[in-house]
C-alpha cells in the first residue's frame, strides 16, 4: 500500500485573501519576517495495490479533472512511502510531475 499526495495551490497570479489574512495575523502573534502566505489544499490518497505508472496516470487525471480546477489552480502529485512499509525506507517522496 502506498500513499499518493496531491497538493493543490492557487496559481501565483490569483489573489489569495485567505493567505493574506493569515499573513496579516502573524506579527500580532509574534511571528516576524514572513512576507507572504498562500493557502492551498493537500489530498492524501491511500492506494490499494501498487502505485505503478498506470495508477499514477489515473490519479493525475483525477487531480486534473476534479481535485483541482486548472483554470485557477496548479497541482502536484507525489508518491509517499509509508513508514513501516516493506523495506521500511525513510519517508522519501518522489515527485511525479507538476501541472503546467
Amino acid at each position, binding site marked *: 500500500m502506498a500513499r499518493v499526495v496531491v497538493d493543490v495551490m492557487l496559481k501565483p*497570479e*490569483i*489573489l489569495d*485573501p*485567505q493567505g493574506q*489574512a493569515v499573513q496579516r495575523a502573524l506579527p500580532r502573534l509574534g511571528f516576524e519576517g514572513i512576507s507572504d502566505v498562500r493557502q492551498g489544499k493537500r489530498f492524501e490518497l491511500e492506494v490499494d495495490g501498487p502505485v505503478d505508472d498506470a495508477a499514477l496516470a489515473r490519479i493525475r487525471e483525477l487531480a486534473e479533472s*476534479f481535485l483541482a*480546477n486548472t*483554470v*485557477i489552480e496548479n497541482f502536484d502529485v507525489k508518491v509517499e512511502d509509508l513508514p513501516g512499509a516493506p523495506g521500511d525506507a525513510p519517508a522519501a517522496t518522489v515527485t511525479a510531475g507538476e501541472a503546467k
Partner: protein
Amino acid sequence: MTVRPSATATDGSAGRPNVRIGVVTFPGSLDDRDTQRAIRLAGAEPVPLWHKDRSLGQVDAVVLPGGFSYGDYLRAGSISRFSPVMGTVVERAREGMPVLGICNGFQVLTEAHLLPGAMLGNEHLHFICRDQKLRVENAGTAWTTDYEAGQEIHIPLKNMDGRYVADERTLDMLEAEGRVVFRYAGDDDSTGYPPTEQASPNGSLRRIAGICNAEGNVVGLMPHPEHATDPLVGTGRTDGLPFFTSILRTFVEGAAA
C-alpha cells in the same frame, strides 16, 4: 444564435406556445422554487428536474438555480458538474439549448467549462447579502432581450463565492466579443468591507457579474433575478422578471418566425 423551439403545443390563451423551462434541483439547491415561480410569473411552464435524472423531458431551456450543490465541499459546483443531469445539460447546451446559471448555477457552469473562468471566495472573505445595482452590458443573449444595453437594474446578491476570475487573455476576449453580460454598477461601498477590485462587491475582476458563451445561449450570473420578480417581496421591484420574459420571447418569436 440558434434555438430549437421544440414547443409546439399551445396553452390555449391567445394561441401562445407553451414554453417549458426546466429547473434543476441539486442536493442543496435553495432557489429552485423561487425560480419555478418566476418562470410561471413570466408566462412559461416550469418543469422540475432532478439531479439524478439524465432526462430533461421535453424542456426548451434549463435554469441551474442558486443555493448549494453537494455541499460544495471541494469547490462550489465541482461535484454537481459530474451529476447525471449535467451530462445532458452540457450536451444540449452545446447544441444550442438556452441555459441560465444563477449563483451556484453560474459556479456549476464554469466548473463544467460551459463558461470560461472560475469563481472564488469573496475578496473580503465575508458572506454578502444585499440589493445590488447592475448594468446590462449585453441585451442580445437568449436571456436578456427584454433589457436594453446600458440599462441599470437592482437585483439581490447573496453569496460567499462570488469572485469571478479568469486570466487576462480570457477577460480581454470576453470584453472584445461582448460576452460580459452584466457588470456590478454603482460606487457605494455599503458592504462595510475594505474596497475590492474596482469597487465590485466581491472582488470580481473587471466588475464582472455575469457572462455568456460565444453563441449567447448559455448565461451565468451571481446575482439573483428570480428574487426580484414580484413587487411584494425582495427588492420591491421586478427588475429580474425580464430574464424570464426574454427566454419566453426567444421561443415565441422563434415559433412565429
